[in-house]
C-alpha cells in the first residue's frame, strides 16, 4: 500500500488539476462574454446576443464545476496538509481570505443576475453584472497566483520559532515571480478559451450551421489566438528567465541538464535516466540552451549536480515542459495558418475546421503541463526553501486517503466525460436554433416546431 504522503500528493494533484481546468475557461470567457454584451449594447445586432447566449451556457457549466471542485480545495489544506498552515498560515491565510472576500462572493452573487437576470434587471445592470463577474474571476486569479508565486519565491517574511511571520505585505503579494506567473496564466486562460471557442464554432460549421454567430465567434477566437500565441511565447520566455534567477534547479530539470557546463546544448528530446543521472537517446542542438537562457553562446548553466538531493524528479518536469512548448508551437502554426486563410477567403477549409475541432481542449493540456512543470519543479519543497512537502503532510491513515482518492478519481472521470460531451450536445442543439427571433429582448428561442426547454437551472 502506498503511504499517506504519496496518496495525499496524488489526491491534491488530482483535485487541483481537475479544478484548474474550469477557472482556466471562466477567467477569459468572462471577458469574452463582456465583449459580446458590449458589442450587443452598442450595435443592438442580435448576432452578438446569440453569441452571448450560447457561450454563457458554457460559462455557467464551467463555473459550477469550478465552484464545487474549489470547495474541495479549502478542505484539503486542513485535512491533508496541516503542516502548510501551521508553518506559513500567517501568510497564506490572509491571501486566501482576500480571495474569498473580494472575489468569490462577487462572482457567485452576480452570476445569478448574469444567468437569470435578462428580464429582471435593466440592460445596463446586466452588462454591469457581466463585467463584475469577469473582474471577480480575474481577481480570484490574482490572489491565488500571488499565493502560489510566494510559495515559489518567498519574500517579505521572517521565521520565528519555525513559523513564518509577515514583515512586508506588498513584497509578499508582488513576490519576484508573481508578475510573470500571473501574465503567463491569464494568457494561458485566453488561449484555452480561444481554442475552445474556435473548436466548438468549427464543430457547428462542420455540422452545417450556416448562421452568422458561429462564423463570428470563430473569427474572434482565431484572430485573438493569432495575436496572443506569440505574446504568450514571449511571456513564457521571460517567466523562464525569472525561474532561472530564483529556482535554477527547476530550469535544470526542464532542460534535462545533469552537469553544470558552459555552452550547454538545448535538449530537444531525450529519456532522462534518474538513476544514472544522464539522458539517454538525447537529440540536442549545441549551445542553444545557453544562448536562450544567458544570451551568450558560452554562458554557464547550473546543472542538477549542484543540487543533489534538493532538486525535483527530472522526468515529469522534462516531459511536461516539452508537451507545453509543443502544444504552444502547434497553436501558433494552426492559429496563423487558419487566420491567414480566413482573412483572405472569409472561410476555412473542412480540413482546417476538423483540425480546430481536434484542438478544442489543447489549451487545457498545455495549461496542465505548464502547471506540472512549475509545481513538480518546486519539489522537494512545498514552500521553496522554507517547508518541505513531506513535512507538511497529515497523519491520517493511508487507507482513509486511499478511499477518498478513489472516490474523487472516479467522480472526476465521470464529470469530465459529462462536461465534454455536454459541450458538444450544446453545440449540436445550437445548430437547430432559428437565426433570429426578436420577440424577446435579444433572446432567440428554439424553432417553433420543437418544444421549448423547460425553465431550468
Amino acid at each position, binding site marked *: 500500500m502506498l503511504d499517506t504522503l504519496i496518496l495525499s500528493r496524488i489526491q491534491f494533484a488530482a483535485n487541483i488539476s481537475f479544478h484548474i481546468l474550469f477557472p482556466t475557461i471562466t477567467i477569459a470567457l468572462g471577458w469574452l462574454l463582456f465583449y459580446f454584451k458590449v458589442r450587443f449594447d452598442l450595435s443592438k445586432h442580435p448576432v452578438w446576443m446569440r453569441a452571448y447566449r450560447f457561450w454563457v451556457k458554457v460559462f455557467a457549466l464551467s463555473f459550477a464545476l469550478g465552484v464545487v471542485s474549489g470547495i474541495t480545495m479549502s478542505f484539503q489544506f486542513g485535512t491533508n496538509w496541516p503542516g502548510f498552515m501551521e508553518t506559513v498560515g500567517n501568510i497564506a491565510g490572509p491571501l486566501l481570505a482576500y480571495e474569498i472576500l473580494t472575489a468569490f462572493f462577487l462572482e457567485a*452573487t452576480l452570476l445569478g443576475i448574469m444567468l437569470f437576470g435578462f428580464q429582471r434587471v435593466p440592460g445596463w445592470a446586466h452588462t454591469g453584472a457581466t463585467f463584475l463577474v469577469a473582474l471577480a474571476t480575474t481577481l480570484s486569479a490574482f490572489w491565488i497566483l500571488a499565493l502560489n508565486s510566494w510559495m515559489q519565491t518567498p519574500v517579505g517574511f521572517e521565521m520565528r520559532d519555525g513559523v513564518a511571520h509577515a514583515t512586508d505585505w506588498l513584497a509578499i503579494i508582488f513576490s519576484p515571480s508573481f508578475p510573470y506567473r500571473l501574465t503567463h496564466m491569464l494568457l494561458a486562460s485566453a488561449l484555452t478559451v480561444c481554442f475552445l471557442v474556435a473548436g466548438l464554432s468549427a464543430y457547428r460549421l462542420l455540422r452545417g450551421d450556416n448562421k452568422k454567430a458561429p462564423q463570428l465567434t470563430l473569427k474572434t477566437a482565431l484572430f485573438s489566438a493569432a495575436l496572443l500565441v506569440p505574446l504568450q511565447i514571449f511571456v513564457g520566455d521571460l517567466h523562464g528567465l525569472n525561474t532561472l534567477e530564483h529556482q535554477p534547479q527547476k530550469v535544470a530539470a526542464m532542460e534535462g541538464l545533469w552537469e553544470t557546463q558552459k555552452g550547454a546544448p538545448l535538449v530537444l528530446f531525450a529519456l532522462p535516466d534518474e538513476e544514472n543521472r544522464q539522458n539517454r537517446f538525447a537529440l540536442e542542438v549545441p549551445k542553444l540552451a545557453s544562448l536562450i537562457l544567458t544570451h551568450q553562446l558560452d554562458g554557464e548553466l547550473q546543472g542538477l549536480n549542484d543540487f543533489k538531493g534538493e532538486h525535483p524528479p527530472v522526468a515529469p518536469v522534462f516531459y511536461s515542459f516539452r508537451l507545453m512548448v509543443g502544444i504552444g508551437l502547434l497553436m501558433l502554426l494552426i492559429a496563423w495558418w487558419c487566420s491567414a486563410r480566413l482573412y483572405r477567403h472569409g472561410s476555412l477549409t473542412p480540413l482546417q475546421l476538423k483540425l480546430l475541432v481536434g484542438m478544442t481542449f489543447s489549451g487545457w493540456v498545455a495549461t496542465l503541463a505548464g502547471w506540472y512543470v512549475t509545481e513538480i519543479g518546486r519539489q522537494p519543497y512545498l514552500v521553496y526553501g522554507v517547508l518541505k512537502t513531506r513535512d507538511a503532510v497529515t497523519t491520517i491513515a493511508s487507507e482513509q486517503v486511499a478511499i477518498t482518492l478513489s472516490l474523487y478519481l472516479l467522480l472526476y472521470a465521470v464529470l469530465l466525460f459529462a462536461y465534454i460531451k455536454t459541450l458538444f450536445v450544446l453545440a449540436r442543439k445550437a445548430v437547430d436554433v432559428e437565426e433570429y427571433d426578436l420577440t424577446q429582448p435579444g433572446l432567440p428561442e428554439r424553432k417553433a416546431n420543437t418544444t421549448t426547454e423547460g425553465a431550468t437551472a
Partner: protein
Amino acid sequence: MSWLTAENLALAFAALTALSLLLYGILDGYDLGVGITLPMQNEAWRDTAIASIGPFWDANETWLVMAVGLLLVAFPAAHSAILHAIYLPAALLLIGLILRGVAFDFRAKVKPAQKRNWDWTFKAGSLLATFSQGFMLGIYVMGLNYQLSSVLFASFSGLCVTAAYAMIGNAWLIGKTSGELQRHAIATCKKAGVLTFGGILAVSMINPLVNANVYAVWTEPPLAYFYAAIPLLCFGMFALGYLVLKRLPLPDDKGAWLPFWLTLIIFVCCFAGLALSFYPFVVPNEMTLYEAASSKESLQIIFFGAVFVLPFILAYTAVAYYAFRGKADDLKYY
C-alpha cells in the same frame, strides 16, 4: 488601536466564523432542502423548484467556503484538528455538493432523456450533503470520537439536520411558488417540521447529559435564566409555525413567507444554543478559540479587509435578492 488585542481579534473571528456558518446553514439550507424534497413525480414542479433557487445557490455555497476558510486562516490548529477527525464524512459532504452542483447545470443542457437522471443526481447529492453535515455536527457535539454511541448519535443528528433542511427548503418554496406546487410544499413542510421538532428536542436533552460543560452552562443561575429564553423561543416558533401552516394558503397569498421567517428564527435559536454550549471551546473540551487563533498581525490584516468588504457583499446580495423577488414560476434560465 488598543482595543484590538489578540483576545478581541480571536473573539471577533470566532463570531465571524460562526456567523458564516449560520448564514450557510440558513441559505444553503433552503436550497439543499429544495434538493432533498425535489418532487420526482412532476417535471414542471421540479423546473420551478430548481428555478427558485437557481440565482442564489452559488452564493449560498460560498458561505461554506467562507466559514471553512475563516476557520483555516484564523484558527488553523482547530481547522486541522476538526477536519482530521471528520475526514471521511467531510469527503462525502464534498462529493454530495459536487454532484448536486453540477447536476443543477447539466440537467438544463443535456438531452431530455437524461434530464431525469440528473434530477435524481441532484436529489441524491443534496441528501448526501445534508446527512453528512448532520453527521459531522453529531460527531463534533460528541467530542470528535467514533465510539458506537457517538456514531449512533451522529447518524441520528444526520437525520435531524436533513429534516431541518427539508423544512426550511419547503418554507422557501411556499414563498416562491403558487398553486399545486405550493400546496405540496406546505404539506411537506409540515411533515419535516414535526420530524425536526422531535430531533431538536432529543438533541437538547442528550447534549447536556453527555457534556458536563454543557450541563453547567444551561443550569447554573443566573445566566441560565436568560439562556432559557432560547429554547422557549425556538419551541414557540414551532407552535406558531404549525398554526400558520394549517391555515395556508390564504387568499392573495398572504403570509406565504411567514413559515420561512419562523424557520429562520428556529435555525438562529438552535445555532445560538450550540454556540453557547461550546463557548469558549472551538474543539470541544480540548482547544479554546483563544488557543487556536493565528498571529495577531495576520488576523488584523484580514479583519480590516473583512470590515471593509462585508458591507459590499451584503449590498450586492441584497440587490440579487431584490432582483429575483416574487414568485419563481416565470423564472427562465437565460
